[in-house]
């Protein structure tokens, strides 16, 4: 199993100097614009939506798109546009928290392993192998049964499930940084392992971590949608795009547009983060790849 981990495609030079001048420009900006849109929707919906996305309006059920309801209404009479806006919050929340947990768990783990070659590294990587064998969806199913399904459970499961990937990336980056002479210089100056980890390793692997984070973000959003489909995601009435898709499924022949809007919303946010990831990758290091 060692070789698998060692062979996870890894960046070759985590230095900003490798930054190409206009690398990833268009891609990067396309990603930023898409994510900006979603972020805007999330922010605006925190203060204002055209209609209450969580109420029930028995007198306006399943209206087609029109002047009043831009995207129509759903089976509870809820304004779909409002739900889409508010759903951005859940998407971003799930992505942020899941990626945050994954990074918080995985990155220090990977750095510590990478900085201590030999037994400790071997031991930690075996541990990582084991957690890698529990994919996020499996954890989500089990955690859902243990703690009850919901947004928090989904986020935690996705976070823990993604952590091993972060650990692998962080470790391989750390191995490279550790072979740099500036680390030797720091050691020769008597700097502690902690100092080297925080001051030298972390900043220098941050580029690839950011790329990984951005890709993982998209994956988390997709995974949340899948979990919602399985009934393990965000419970109603809080609008979540994944659940909107699942709900819309029953109305596919009555109101096919209902499935279109959340579908587009999910695609936009995932596309945004993937483009951002690609753009950042080109910018930080053209040779960089990230395991997904």
């Amino acid at each position, binding site marked *: 199993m060692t070789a698998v981990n060692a062979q996870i495609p890894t960046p070759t030079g985590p230095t900003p100097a490798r930054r190409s001048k206009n690398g990833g420009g268009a891609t990067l900006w396309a990603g930023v614009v898409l994510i900006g849109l979603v972020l805007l929707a999330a922010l605006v919906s925190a203060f204002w939506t055209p209609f209450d996305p969580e109420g029930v309006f028995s007198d306006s059920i399943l209206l087609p798109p029109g002047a009043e309801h831009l995207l129509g209404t759903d089976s509870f009479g809820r304004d779909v546009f409002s739900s889409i806006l508010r759903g951005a919050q859940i998407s971003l929340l799930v992505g942020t928290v899941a990626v945050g947990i994954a990074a918080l768990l995985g990155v220090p783990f990977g750095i510590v392993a990478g900085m201590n070659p030999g037994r400790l590294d071997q031991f930690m990587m075996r541990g990582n192998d084991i957690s890698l064998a529990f994919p996020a969806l499996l954890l989500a199913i089990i955690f859902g049964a243990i703690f009850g399904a919901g947004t928090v459970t989904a986020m935690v499961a996705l976070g823990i499930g993604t952590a091993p990937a972060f650990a692998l990336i962080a470790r391989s980056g750390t191995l490279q940084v550790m072979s740099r002479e500036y680390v030797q210089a720091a050691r020769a100056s008597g700097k502690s392992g902690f100092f080297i980890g925080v001051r030298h390793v972390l*900043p220098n692997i941050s580029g690839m971590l950011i790329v990984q984070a951005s890709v993982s973000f998209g994956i988390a959003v997709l995974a949340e949608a899948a979990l919602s489909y399985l009934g393990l995601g965000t419970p109603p009435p809080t609008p979540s795009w994944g659940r909107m898709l699942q709900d819309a499924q029953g109305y596919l022949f009555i109101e096919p547009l209902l499935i279109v809007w959340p579908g587009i919303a999910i695609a936009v946010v995932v596309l945004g983060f993937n483009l951002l990831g690609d753009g950042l990758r080109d910018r930080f290091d053209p040779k960089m790849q990230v395991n997904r």
Partner: protein
Amino acid sequence: MSTPTLSVSDLRVGSPFNELLHGISFDIAAGERVGLIGESGSGKSLTATSVMGLLPETLAASGTIRLNGVEADLLTAGERRLNSLRGNTMAMVFQEPMTALNPLMRVGAQVAEIMTVHRTEKGRRQARDRAVELLAQVKLPNPAEAALAFPHQLSGGQRQRVMLAMAMANDPQLLLCDEPTTALDVTVQAEVLKLIGNLVTDRGTALLLITHDIAVVAEVCQRVLVMYEGDIVEDGPVGRVLTAPQHPYTQKLIAASDLSSVDDRGRLHTMSMPVISTPRAAASSPRPVAADAAAAPILPPHRAAHQRLEQGGPPVVFNEVAGVPAISVRDVSRQYRRRGGGLFAPAPIVHGLREVSFDVGEGQRFGIVGESGSGKSTLMRILCALDQPSAGTVDVLGQSIAGASERQLRDFRSQVQIVFQDPMGSLDPRMRVRDIVAEPLRNVSRADALARVEAQLNAVGLDADVMHRHPHQFSGGQRQRISIARALITRPRVLVADEAVSALDVSVRAQVLNLLADLVDEYQLTLVFVSHDLGVIRHLCDTVAVISDGRIVECGPTASVYDRPLHPYTRQLVSATPSMRDLARRAAN
């Protein structure tokens, strides 16, 4: 005069942002061996790739490139036409033997491919047989076996021979070599160069040899082109250019290359041309450290005996110093267990060092020279307590450091500092210069630290205003100055340098060497200088140890070792590093 094999006229290459080659023109006659020298970034590789038609897509070329017997202009010829010429009428050998071969394909097949592509051999079989023949011609031992090897199973020199075999397979009219030997050890380099020379002479091939090393040109070429910032500034026979360079750039280049010629202060000649654009400081030579710094270098406190290790003989303690030496190494061995080892095999054991014993006296300038993989860096890491020996003892400044804990080493850390080989690697790209230089300081207030950093940067010839910049905003020479500043800020007594100048251009190399020499004098440092380049060592060190395969095989006063090498390995090394004067003499013949 007959038609030249290659005729380049008014070649311009531009990127969307700027022009990189400014209309260069030159011819190469059949059988002529031409060298192309110049600094890094001057456009040498672009010239060669233009000829091959392998410029990156983002660059555009204009002008004409003609090849004898080809009616089309290579710059405008179609891809199909070019494919039929590449590898057949013209061939190229690249710099990096490590990456230029497909790692997943046997080398014999890679050589045979060039013949099957151009159908110069009847069939696969014949191509394979011919490949083995070619491998024999480039003097690979066991060519039949070597043909079945994968690239990683060959050494760098061997791989470069494979590249050469490939290039020569179809008896090209024109051979382009882009820095074919820079990644190789001096001794290997000499062999490969000789091979190139012989192959082209035998077949009457026209050769364009790109290098930044004048010695290489002098070794192989008849004529030399000197490039400077996208222009050819000088074109003439090697002998003439070496002895009487016309263009000021060439003059400085040649002066700086000559490590044996020093000025009245015992310092190397440096280039005063604004070779490096950004820095002011780097362009000026280091400021004199003291009024009387020009006096003769400090006499070594101890004159080493000239000793060698006898084959199979008992271990020798080299350069033994009476009293308390600054560094005392006894019977140090270091073995590595290679990582991984694959699925079903134990990790192989590599010997980095084998029973090495020597002393370095206080104030001595001790050079260590040897080929790649001989154990130099291992030794250096052990001296700095960055690595522990598998066996043996190491005492530095009276303290035993083998097996010492980081706490016990606290004092040692500020007493012994290191300078590494440059290319970005030794400076954290994410940190500002002030933080980099201040890093070794401990228990010093921020204000104090900044003041000391400023002073130290001044001492290495950098202005204080560089403090807030990041390393990537500096040239190689400047970066090395920053490394040196960092090493000296704790006022160490011992300075260890690992290949501190081998990544630098000749011009900058001279500056940095001068700076090091000055500072060693000023701070009265004990210097351990590791290099694969005997010339550099000879200039800087009073004593030199030659290391081969993990063992010191010879050690003694530099001049003595250089003039009367005792060990055959040293002899090989010395002869592979000719002085400028030798070169000029040889080229003139």
